[in-house]
């Protein structure tokens, strides 16, 4: 069963609709006590890094998520939820992320239109490429955990994967068939 973390993220219902469409079973989780040992965890997110971490802290979910990930449970972060897997973000200096992956989320270069909004191509490590819908103002640089890259005035990580952790910078729940297939694949891989 997927635990869909509900801390008030704007794309929560879109993600729920996407899970519904692929026939995945899920429930909303609002506090640590609702997390079960056999959960796969999905962390949605849009908006501001600092505000998201504050919302997680308010619900005491930060330590619960870090603990669950360290116990080996599968955790998927979408958009801002992927950025939250990292240590820091230039969007909210001084506010720490979950720190499950090393690195800092960076601003896009100044001369480009921000947010990076619309469909862009993500190229995965196995060479497969597809179009996905993005809406982000900050980026995860290419790191050891990078699974797919996308070009917008330079390459950045559009997907990350390391052990039980996975993240998509784009919105698979808004990326038509290719996106839904990717969520379905994560559900399958996470067992």
């Amino acid at each position, binding site marked *: 069963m997927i635990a869909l973390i509900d801390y008030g993220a704007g794309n929560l219902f*879109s993600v729920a*609709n996407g899970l519904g469409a692929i026939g995945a079973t899920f429930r909303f989780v609002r506090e640590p006590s609702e997390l079960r040992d056999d959960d796969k965890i999905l962390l949605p997110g849009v908006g501001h890094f600092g505000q998201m971490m504050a919302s997680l802290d308010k619900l005491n979910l930060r330590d619960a998520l870090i603990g669950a990930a360290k116990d080996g449970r599968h955790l998927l972060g979408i958009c801002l939820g992927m950025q939250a897997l990292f240590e820091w973000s230039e969007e909210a200096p001084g506010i720490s992320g979950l720190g499950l992956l090393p690195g800092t989320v960076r601003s896009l270069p100044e001369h480009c239109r921000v*947010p990076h909004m619309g469909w862009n191509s993500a190229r995965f490590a196995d060479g497969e490429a597809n179009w996905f819908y993005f809406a982000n103002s900050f980026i995860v640089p290419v790191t050891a955990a990078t699974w797919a890259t996308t070009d917008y005035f330079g390459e950045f990580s559009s997907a990350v994967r390391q052990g039980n952790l996975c993240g998509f910078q784009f919105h698979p729940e808004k990326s038509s068939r290719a996106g839904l297939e990717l969520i379905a694949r994560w559900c399958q891989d996470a067992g």
Partner: protein
Amino acid sequence: MLAKRIVVCLDVANGRVVKGTNFVNLRDAGDPVELAKRYSNEGADEIVFLDINASHEVRPTILDVVSKTAREVFVPLAVGGGVRSVGDARLLLNAGADKICVNSAAVSRIDLLTELSSEFGAQATVLAIDAKNSDHGWKVYIKGGRQATDLEAANWARLGQNAGAGEILLTSMDTDGVRNGFDLNLVNAICAVTSIPVIASGGAGSAQHFVNLFTTTEASAGLAASIFHEKATSISSIKQVLNEENITVRLA
């Protein structure tokens, strides 16, 4: 590379898609959920719903349309009409909208943009601007184009961006419905003073108009409605032409 977007706009009145110009001669164009599904299958990169009757509230009929569509259509949905507060926007987002368009309400109170942006993010905050040429430059109109303001469009776009808007939906009232091409001068004027994405609207009549838009302006997207409803052309054939002109588009 980031693809140029083809956006389809569906004007909704009392739960049905309508077509017509300037709120007169409205004719029924079909069921919004079915049309959104059809356009999404044909390659629409984004769907915009505008509740053209709403003025002071987000109405239950549009919430119903959004929530039904969001369960079946998996491309971004922008919704406008009657949004005056963070609470209104939340209703739409919870129903499954991804972006909120505001026009008149932002002109009356620019802080609304800041509030929406800090609550839901700039990517969800779309400033819709209806502009019309005059002897004193492009003037901003509100209330569905029925009321002129003193605002100059480029100044207003810049103010809106600074207040927190993450995208501009720019409609030229001069070219709207004429199908003789987008208002390229207006689009260039707005793009020149902003650094957020601009969706150009008004005047699309053929694939060549989209080619002109993307080769002569920095617009991120082009929006059309009636040409698709009337099957004058299709999204996929427009994208085919754009692709042949080496303009990056998402080919389904």
